[in-house]
């Protein structure tokens, strides 16, 4: 029996585990880092304990601290979620040694599969095909190029580098080691043959302590950026029942060899099968993840066991409590199709770099209804310390196309504002003909190139701008100190109209409006000659506006955050930035200044004052959001000033270094 469960994790997965635990009558304990103090998972849990630290190492990765809280809170079980300590066999053992239940596979299985090299050896032994690999950089030639440098203890794309030619090898190995060291506390890396256009297909397995073992079919997770999955689905469009059985059997052979219990995932690369019949598809073993996967909800959506949907966290808890699965492979039925998208605070237009900030507005779509596994709410701050995933959104439908389009619409109708996200990119990806055709390989994003940024149409921008302007107009009237009840902006002579200049993306929309005697507004645009519009405000609210624009009735939520208007209206989310009426004539950034793209820590400073540097030369290396960022000179010049040193923690936008650019063209 488990009566009180500690969740050694954060964010959406902590909430996910808490939800099921509560449903099973199990009390829960959350643990949290400083920056998570106000996170939803902290309040969702029955009780929450502070980890008294900021970084991963000081908090969710600190096994001793977590164990100490588990004991003090009286928890009798620990669920590790994914990431952090979930694949740390030592921690699993310590939990069990402390007399608590470990919700996961036996530590031996974790240890065996945690080292990817030994996992490959085991796969070889049980007859599961594997890719050529080596731990010795000198043997790179045997592995063959292109090859992949991977952290032995890794996951999630961290500490991973693609190497196309031998001369790149040394630097890639060094970088991968460093990243592996920071992320996993183990800098062992190995080389593996790199397939150009494979699909990532994985088999969900589930085992109990009584020898019960089933697989729950596959998930395809080929849509990746920076080697991290962003769109996952079940089933895979290329996996036929025959291939599914074949891969499932291979996964179960491995699981049996490991005496596997709890939920796990056997990952494969699949090559071929592009024409959809799966006949010519081949698969290679990649690795085993001895934990719950991020993308587990797509499996939950499509798998029925004896006619009932499966809750993988519930199965984990049941197995941990020693219950038998109670069903066999024959009871497992696949139905319909599910697609999941990972919503990240990141900028697809800037190489998917994490984008931190505040979720100023968060509202889930109510139509269509989809599953949200979210870790944030309105007001959540996404910082540099942890993974910037905001939520997973999962749509189920009878067919793959319907599921994809349903998910795209739900994402489009989700309100997520205040920070840069990959939402529009996800929507665009889901709607590409290539995705809808099932033409999904791991190089999908580079190959198909869905638009990185959403460019709203002129009329969408104008609509949002008018709504923002008229909403602000209403706010201004409410705040007026005198004559509040008079018609807005009333004039008794010929005066210029009211004005609000708004920046949407790179476009400035100058809204000009004047109230008419009947209370409607005549609207024109500074940049568009002869385009006139009529707008009637039906209702103005503190958080939105209903209006009729040229006969089209629109309702929008509007939120103000500094100079930003966050409009959530008929055309989705649009952010508009008010251009100041009186621009500040004070001087701008010195030319040639190198700024920090986001808060982070300085890893390397590769230039000193007086150095002559060339455009594109990397001057500073920063670590932020667990990623390395190389900041290069914008132009040829001489370093005038270095303002940071290795180890410094710097804010986003901080001036790191100034390069004097001789005869710089005057931009003013």
């Amino acid at each position: 029996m488990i009566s009180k469960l500690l969740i050694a994790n954060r964010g959406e997965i902590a909430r996910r585990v808490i939800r099921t635990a509560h449903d099973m009558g199990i009390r829960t304990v959350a643990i949290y880092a400083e920056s998570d103090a106000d996170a939803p998972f902290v309040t969702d849990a029955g009780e929450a304990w502070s980890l008294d630290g900021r970084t991963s190492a000081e908090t969710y990765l600190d096994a001793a601290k977590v164990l100490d809280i588990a004991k003090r809170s009286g928890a009798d079980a620990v669920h590790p979620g994914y990431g952090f300590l979930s694949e740390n066999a030592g921690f699993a053992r310590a939990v069990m040694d402390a007399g608590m239940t470990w919700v996961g596979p036996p530590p031996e299985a974790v240890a065996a599969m945690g080292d990817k090299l030994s996992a490959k050896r085991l796969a070889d032994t049980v007859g599961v095909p594997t890719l050529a690999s080596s731990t010795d950089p000198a043997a790179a030639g045997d592995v063959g190029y292109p090859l992949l440098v991977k952290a032995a203890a890794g996951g999630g794309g961290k500490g991973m580098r693609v190497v196309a030619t031998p001369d790149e090898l040394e630097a890639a190995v060094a970088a991968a080691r460093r990243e592996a060291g920071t992320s996993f506390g183990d800098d062992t890396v190995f080389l593996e043959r790199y397939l150009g256009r494979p699909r990532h297909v994985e088999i969900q397995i589930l085992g109990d302590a009584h020898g019960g073992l089933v697989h729950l079919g596959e998930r395809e997770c080929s849509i990746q950026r920076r080697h991290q999955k962003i769109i996952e689905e079940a089933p895979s469009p290329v996996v036929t029942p025959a291939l599914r059985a074949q891969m499932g059997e291979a996964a179960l052979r491995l699981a049996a060899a490991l005496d596997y219990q709890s939920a796990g995932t056997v990952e494969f690369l699949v090559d071929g099968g592009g024409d959809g019949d799966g006949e010519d598809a081949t698969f290679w073993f990649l690795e085993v993840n001895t934990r719950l996967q991020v993308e587990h909800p797509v499996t939950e959506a499509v798998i029925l066991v004896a006619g009932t949907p499966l809750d993988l966290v519930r199965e984990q808890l049941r197995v941990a409590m020693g219950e038998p699965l109670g069903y066999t492979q024959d009871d497992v039925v696949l139905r319909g199709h599910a697609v999941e998208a990972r919503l990240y605070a990141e900028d697809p237009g800037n190489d998917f770099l994490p984008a931190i900030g505040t979720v100023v507005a968060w509202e889930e779509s109510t139509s269509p209804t989809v599953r949200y596994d979210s870790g944030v709410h309105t007001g959540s701050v996404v910082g540099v310390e942890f993974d910037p995933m905001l939520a997973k959104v999962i749509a189920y439908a009878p067919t793959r196309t319907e599921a994809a389009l349903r998910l795209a619409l739900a994402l489009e109708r989700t309100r997520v504002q205040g920070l840069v996200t990959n939402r529009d990119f996800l929507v665009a990806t889901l709607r590409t003909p290539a995705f809808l055709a099932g033409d999904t390989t791991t190089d999908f994003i580079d190959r198909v190139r869905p638009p990185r940024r959403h460019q709203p149409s002129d009329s969408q921008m104008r609509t949002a701008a008018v709504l923002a302007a008229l909403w602000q107009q209403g706010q201004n009237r409410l705040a007026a100190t005198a004559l509040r009840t008079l018609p807005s902006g009333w004039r008794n002579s010929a005066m210029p109209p009211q004005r609000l200049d708004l920046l949407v993306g790179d476009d400035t929309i100058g809204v000009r409006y004047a109230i008419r005697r009947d209370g409607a507004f005549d609207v024109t645009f500074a940049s568009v000659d002869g385009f006139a519009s009529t707008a009637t405000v039906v209702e103005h609210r503190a958080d939105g506006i209903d209006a009729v624009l040229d006969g089209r009735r629109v309702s929008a939520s509007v939120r103000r955050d500094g100079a930003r208007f966050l409009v959530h209206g008929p055309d989705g989310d649009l952010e508009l930035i008010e251009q100041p009426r009186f621009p500040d004539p004070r001087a701008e950034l010195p030319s040639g200044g190198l700024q920090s793209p986001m808060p982070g820590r300085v890893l390397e400073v590769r230039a000193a004052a007086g150095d002559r540097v060339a455009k594109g030369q990397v001057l500073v290396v920063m670590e932020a959001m667990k990623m390395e960022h190389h900041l290069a000179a914008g132009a040829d010049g001489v370093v005038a000033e270095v303002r940071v040193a290795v180890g410094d923690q710097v804010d986003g936008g901080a001036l790191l270094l100034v390069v004097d650019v001789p005869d710089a063209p005057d931009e003013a």
Partner: protein
Amino acid sequence: MVGIVEARSLESRLDPRAAQFQKNRTDVLEQLAEIERLLQEAAAGGGPKAHARLAGRGKMPIRERISLLLDPDTPFLELNPLTAWHSKYTVGGGLVAGIGTVSGTECLVMGNDPSVLGGAITQFAGKKIMRALQVARENRLPYIQFVESAGGDLRGDPDPERTLITQIEHFGESGRLFYEITELSKLGIPSVSLVFGSSTAGGAYQPGMSDYNIFIRNQSKVFLGGPPLVKMATGEESDDETLGGAQMHAEVSGLADYLAEDELDGLRICREVISHLNWSKLGPGPTMPADEPVHDPEELLGLVSRDLRQPVDVREVIARVVDGSRFEEFKARYGMTLICGWASVHGFPVGILGNNGTLFSDSSEKAAQFIQLCNQINVPLIFLHNITGYMVGREYEHSGIVKNGSKMINAVSNSEVPHISVILGSSYGAGNYGMSGRGFNTRFTFLWPTAKIAIMGPKQMAGVIGIVRRGSAARAGIEFDEAEEAERAAGVEDFAERQSLALYATSRVADDGVIDPRDTRTTIAAALSACHSNKVEGSRSFGVFRM
């Protein structure tokens, strides 16, 4: 907002389908179309060429400057927009003045239109500036002036001899403008000069006498004598910038308190200055619900006929102006040719006096009592003029119409609550005085397009002159030429009619502007709010006399 509303809404007996109503409406809309055309003409100022020339120098039109200064979406009540109509000058007089909200504070904003004669001050402009200063002083409104003026209009009349004979203004009387700016300061009313261009010679004292001066780099020029005059006076060679540039005044002479980088920066600084004034209005502010009238203000267009011969029930006007059409009528069954009562306009409580016919002894006494009552309770007065005058005739003289009319004029003269006059139709003779005409310290006077202001009706005037001429002809024993008289009378009537028209009055700054009747409520509210910047207190010299 507080205030318990006990008064009931007025009922309306108006028939908007009546032929007379429709004709009146058509007539007024025709007049309003002409006024709209004139407002556009005023806004065009010196025309597109002049504006293009100024834009080439990075200068914004005066109305653009004012719009950017005002708080977004706040109302702006322009005063005298049609000054200099039907004169040799551009409509508007090369000057824009009005009341608007800047940084949350209602201010009087006045600015030269540099596209018109380079902002030179004509007689019309001079009168308009003085009126603007009066509005600032009486209502305690911070005064902002945008200075960009070539100076006084020195161009003489093409016929100098005629000028010498007819002109009665003299330089010895000038300079009052500078006195008034200083007086504002003494009264605790701040003045801000934002100098957009030249402000030279006498004009230099405009910023000179202001509390705050904002000059714009490479644009403001302020000096007593320009380079040519200096050369003539002392032989010294100089240029505009060293003699009176913005930077010099900010760094050397100290005449400028703020140096703006450009026009927008100047406007921003001006808003900053107003925001630090720590200003609060002295009046109580709106205290009543400000719901719309029950009856449609659109119907105000059909009430008054162009020839003013159709009687108008002024209660139909009140019902379309006051909050919720609520009106508590005072002495409803006494002196019924003058309607008196209490209401509110956009939440400001008011006492209203409206003509429903000629003023008699009883209606005059009723007015005197009502005015005193409003003074006792510090409630501003609204006068709705449609008055041909006090009743004449033996019976009325015998019963003391002069004496009783004087009580009303006395009460109006000594009343100290703010007065706002709206002239709907006629405002003739002593009727204009009794109804708080321009000469009676009325804070604001607005005209409907149908307004006519004169010593008497044009027809009556022509007739009176005819009778007088017949009399003197008879005394002299000269045969009276009726045909000639008819022609002469027609000429007199035509001349008097034209002089009595709303546009003529407004052109001469004899009021604060012609308004669209549908804007009556909004205009009164904007004016009342301005009045409430100052104290709203009635006279307490006597107890209220029962009349």
